[in-house]
């Protein structure tokens, strides 16, 4: 398994797309932090990067990589290696290299320029978001053998989580505004990894505003140590579940 991970990591790190991804992240984060005298604006741009670009690149790149390495996987399967080992090797290798790209690209300027609390939180959520969307990509790649369809599913899922979900919540909120929906909203938001990541960062970034209304509900849930642990466990669960389902399917798949 270790050898598979090593091979995948080396293969991806040599990949031009990942190099460009790292470079773009780096240029973007260094420039926004050094151009803006007020670091809040830079953080806002990076927040959008973490919530939109990181998941998009992760999900599409991972899906395409999966399809492209179909032959490599077939080759591995002809060897006496368990399918679980191959799949987890691929997943760990790909996640490690994407997280590495994120840390090198965006993590270093974040740690240098952003206040410690926000910086670490953004770094943590960024890494988890990468992992989550790679897991989602693995799932969509095993759902269909058609490459175009697989990429389509990935993009649709990204679209849903990154853009549509919040719109849906906003709509629901307007519809049910007469009812005490605060707790329900916390619950529904926690179901989307990107909303969860956004709220976690928001609690650090807009702390003054979040302390306002939210005193009772959000802060009690997300702001406490238990809330933080729950949120991060949920994010980790979001990595494990899609991966687990993709593994189940991969094990039974007829290649």
């Amino acid at each position, binding site marked *: 398994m270790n050898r598979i991970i090593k091979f995948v990591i080396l293969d991806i790190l040599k990949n031009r797309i990942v190099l460009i991804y790292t470079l773009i992240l780096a240029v973007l984060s260094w420039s926004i932090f050094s151009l803006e005298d*007020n670091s*809040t*604006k830079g953080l*806002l741009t990076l*927040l*959008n990067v973490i*919530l*939109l670009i990181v998941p998009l690149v992760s999900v599409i790149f991972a899906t395409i990589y999966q399809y492209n390495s179909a032959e490599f996987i077939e080759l591995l399967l002809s060897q006496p290696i368990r399918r679980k080992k191959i799949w987890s090797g691929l997943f760990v290798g790909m996640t490690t290299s994407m997280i590495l790209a994120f840390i090198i690209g965006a993590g270093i300027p974040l740690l240098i320029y952003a206040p410690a609390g926000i910086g670490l939180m953004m770094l943590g959520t960024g890494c988890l978001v990468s992992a989550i969307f790679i897991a989602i990509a693995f799932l969509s790649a095993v759902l269909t053998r058609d490459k175009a369809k697989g990429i389509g599913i990935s993009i649709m899922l990204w679209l849903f989580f*990154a*853009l549509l979900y*919040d*719109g849906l*919540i*906003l709509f629901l*909120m*307007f519809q049910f*505004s007469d009812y005490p*929906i*605060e707790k329900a*909203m*916390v619950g529904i*938001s926690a179901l989307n990894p990107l*909303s969860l990541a*956004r*709220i976690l960062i*928001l609690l650090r*970034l*807009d702390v*003054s*505003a*979040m*302390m*306002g*209304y*939210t*005193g*009772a*509900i*959000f802060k009690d849930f997300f702001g406490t140590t238990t809330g933080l642990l729950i949120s991060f466990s949920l994010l980790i669960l979001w990595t494990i579940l899609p991966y687990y389902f993709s593994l189940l399917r991969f094990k039974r798949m007829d290649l």
Partner: protein
Amino acid sequence: MKITTPLLILLHFSLFAGAKTIHVGDTYPVRRIQAAIRQAAAGDTVVVHGGIYREGNLVIDKSLVLLGMNHPVLDGQKKFEVVSIKADHVVFDGFTVQHSGYATLSDPCAIRVHHGNGITISNNILEDNFFGISIQFSKNCLIKNNRIRAYGTLEQEIGNGIHCWKSDSLQIIANNISGHRDGIYFEFVSHSVIWRNVASDNIRYGLHFMFSNDDAYMVNIFSRNGAGVAVMFSKGVKMFSNVFEENWGDSVYGLLLKEINDSYIQGNRFINNTSGIYMDGTNRITVEKNIFGGNGWGMKIQANCTDNTVTHNNFLGNTFDISTNGTLVLNTFNENYWDKYEGYDLDKNNIGDVPFHPLSIFSVIVESYPPAMLLFRSFMVTLLDKSEKIMPTLTPDNFVDNMPLMRAIDL
């Protein structure tokens, strides 16, 4: 010679007046302060030396100067009002007053002034009292350099630090107040000044101001108070160069203005509050040259405010600069610096060529559906905000700064 002449004159006066000094302490013939006051005549000085004095309620009913040496401790044993000043021209300086009683009807204080004129209360340390200093029906009093600390946890179980009622021409200078219900409380107090005080970590308001006209407060620091600072039902209030910071929570405001008319807010800093200023029913107020930084809401202006002018302020790094609850706008917002402004300045006159709409649609939404805050900074909301900025449909389009500044003002 210049210095000694007035001293000599003073000395002469005191000689002619026959004023004497009575020492109180373990090593002196007089051991109790009350006894010394009984012996003294108006104009005398009572010097109290270090030690602990448990004399129940100490009544000062003559015009005396009471000086504490090495902060003698007056202990109310949690039963009594410690010091009651019932004469004019009393100086009470350099004591430690602690453990006043607790009663909800008589409100025992560490130091109470009743119907006094020209009272000076200075350089005292007040520890763990129900009310700190209470001034009632008094004039020309000076409250200076006192450190007032209590350890209240519940609003109804602790009194105010400096409580002023129906008084005139007070000077509250350089006091440090924490842990009380309201740091400084003003009701029916006029022509007074509150200067260079620090009110922090009080349970309710740092400064609470009711029906008090023509007062000024300047260069004070109000931080981490339960509900910030409230100024209500007053007119002609001047607020200069104060700092309002880290007042956090729902319905907690850096500065709450309710029914305030013809007042002036200048040069203050509102830093990291949930809401910097909350204005409700205020008229003809000028808000200028203030800094609003890192607040959840810079200003919340209710639609019932009229003829207020907000000009030459810096809005920096607030989550929302301004919010309101209606569509009626009867106030002007010109020539402020907004860090969210994205316009351009072709003629380089430091005034942006495109008007700025400081009201974001999302702040209006949050005003009516507070849970929406959970969606803040999501793509949908940002999209909504951007489109609203370009074409205001839901927010009042006359809520506008027609001359937004390109650079922050040096304040």
